[in-house]
């Protein structure tokens, strides 16, 4: 071992550390390393001797006051070093408070300044439907939903009757039905429907016999939101606020019947609507007996039937396919008609009566 390697161990020896045997042996026999050890020890002694003189000086007595509240200290410090007039500072604080309170008021008002109620309905087993009700649209259309809840088939319809500040009066119709049959809601004037005041933001529960408890939740909005996805899913046929044109003349407006989006993604079923004076129209992806093939481009269904040119215009794309089948039944007479001279929506299963030909399993009428 050479002296340079042993030097760090000499330092460690001064600190009371043990060192490797080879280093210890070298230090014990090397005059230079012993001189270094002597210097290190002498330096330590000299430092401690010098320090001994300085320790004789007394420190000034101090009073240890209880630490102040940090916020109070901060405030006192800020108040004492303030460089603007106190009045200006007070005015600044007052201004901030006024602006903050105005903001809070606006936030509170924003909850009921909308003109549209987004209504969410949940059944005993989970969500049923979302729909929107406008307080300004004179061609008001209801929220309508058909489907299975538990072991029952429920038809459910909600009209927005009036508005009073942040709440709305709703007319709610519910009925159970048999699949394939027209549910036939009770007429408003019959007094069979429920009228309730509903405040968006406050959940509302009501009981439907044989079905269970339905829960309504709402939210004010300042625009008509788009519900659902714009693109149809596989096998889906759907309509949104449809308009029927016969030889380019409007003969049916179903916007009051299908305010949102109505459809089915079951390729083995058919659904349709009735328009007074024109009969019933059934739509399917399978060729039905007596049906004509219709061309589909986005939200437009075009077909020729009975010597007329027909167009069914939908607010949303109808299906993924470029054609569907339309069965027109001009002599069809429904038993139950809704509020208007249109009726929607019929549904039925299709059965294959011969190769490549299907028919509705039963007349939905």
């Amino acid at each position, binding site marked *: 071992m050479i002296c340079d390697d042993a030097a760090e161990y000499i330092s460690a020896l001064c600190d009371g550390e043990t060192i490797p045997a080879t280093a210890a042996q070298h230090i014990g026999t090397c005059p230079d390393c012993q001189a270094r050890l002597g*210097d290190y020890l002498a330096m330590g002694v000299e*430092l*401690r001797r*010098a*320090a001994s*003189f300085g*320790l004789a*000086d007394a420190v000034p007595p101090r009073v240890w006051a209880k*630490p102040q509240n940090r916020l109070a200290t901060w405030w006192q410090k800020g108040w004492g070093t303030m460089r603007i007039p106190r009045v200006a500072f007070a005015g600044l604080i007052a201004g901030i408070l006024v602006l903050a309170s105005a903001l809070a008021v606006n936030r509170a008002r924003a909850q009921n300044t909308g003109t549209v109620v987004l209504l969410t309905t949940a059944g005993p087993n989970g969500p049923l439907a979302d729909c929107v009700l406008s307080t300004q649209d004179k061609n008001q259309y209801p929220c309508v939903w058909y489907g299975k809840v538990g072991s029952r088939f429920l038809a459910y319809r909600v009209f927005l009757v009036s508005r009073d500040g942040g709440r709305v009066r709703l007319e709610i119709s519910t009925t159970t039905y048999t699949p394939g049959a027209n549910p036939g809601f009770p007429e408003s004037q019959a007094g069979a429907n429920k009228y309730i005041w509903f405040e968006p933001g406050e959940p509302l529960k009501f009981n439907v016999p044989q079905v269970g408890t339905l829960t309504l939740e709402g939210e004010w909005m300042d625009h008509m939101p788009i519900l659902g996805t714009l693109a149809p899913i596989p096998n889906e046929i759907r309509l949104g606020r449809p308009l029927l044109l016969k030889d380019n003349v409007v003969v049916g407006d179903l916007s009051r019947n299908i305010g949102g989006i109505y459809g089915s993604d079951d390729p083995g079923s058919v659904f349709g609507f009735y328009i007074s004076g024109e009969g019933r129209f059934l739509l399917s992806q399978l060729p039905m007996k007596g049906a004509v093939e219709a061309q589909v481009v986005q939200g437009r269904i075009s077909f020729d039937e009975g010597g007329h040119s027909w167009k069914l215009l939908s607010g949303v794309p109808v299906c993924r396919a470029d054609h569907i089948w339309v069965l027109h039944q001009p002599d069809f007479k429904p038993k139950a008609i809704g509020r208007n001279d249109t009726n929607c929506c019929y549904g039925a299963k299709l059965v294959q009566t011969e190769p490549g030909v299907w028919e509705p399993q039963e007349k939905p009428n």
Partner: protein
Amino acid sequence: MFDDRELWTNIANGNADAFDIWYRETAPRLRLFLRHLLGGEQEAEDVMQETFTQIWRRPHRFDPERGSPRAYLFGVARRQAAEWRRKQKPTDELRVDPPTPSRVEIASMVTEALSRLTLEHRTLLWLREVEGQSYQELATILDVPLGTVRSRLFAAREALRVLWCSARRNSGGRHDL
């Protein structure tokens, strides 16, 4: 007399008497340490008072698991001194007050040589040789790994030795001891 644990329990509870006992016990040594770190009497006094004030206001920052209260005190003081020096000027040069009559006696060659070391070497040598801090405590105070302490101590000693031996040669071989 308080032991360390009892002392800090009392200080943490805001016991001013306990803190004052600790202050009177440790302040002289801390001031001396700071005097060698900062070079000036007044600066050392100011930084020392600031150090004690900070600990009195926030005693809960001390973690007994990480070392003794005295090691914590010197660690805080070291940081306060470094902060003070940072605000003064970006140099490691030490301004040494002319020795007052009471300090002439201690202005030996080794302390003169010490004042010419870097801040880190001065801190390390003083805490080890004068304050007797262990390697573990030095690692905590300086916030360096334990293994680094030994090598840095050696470097500090060697730097001081070079200066000290040079001073002895220039003074005709007179030894301070």
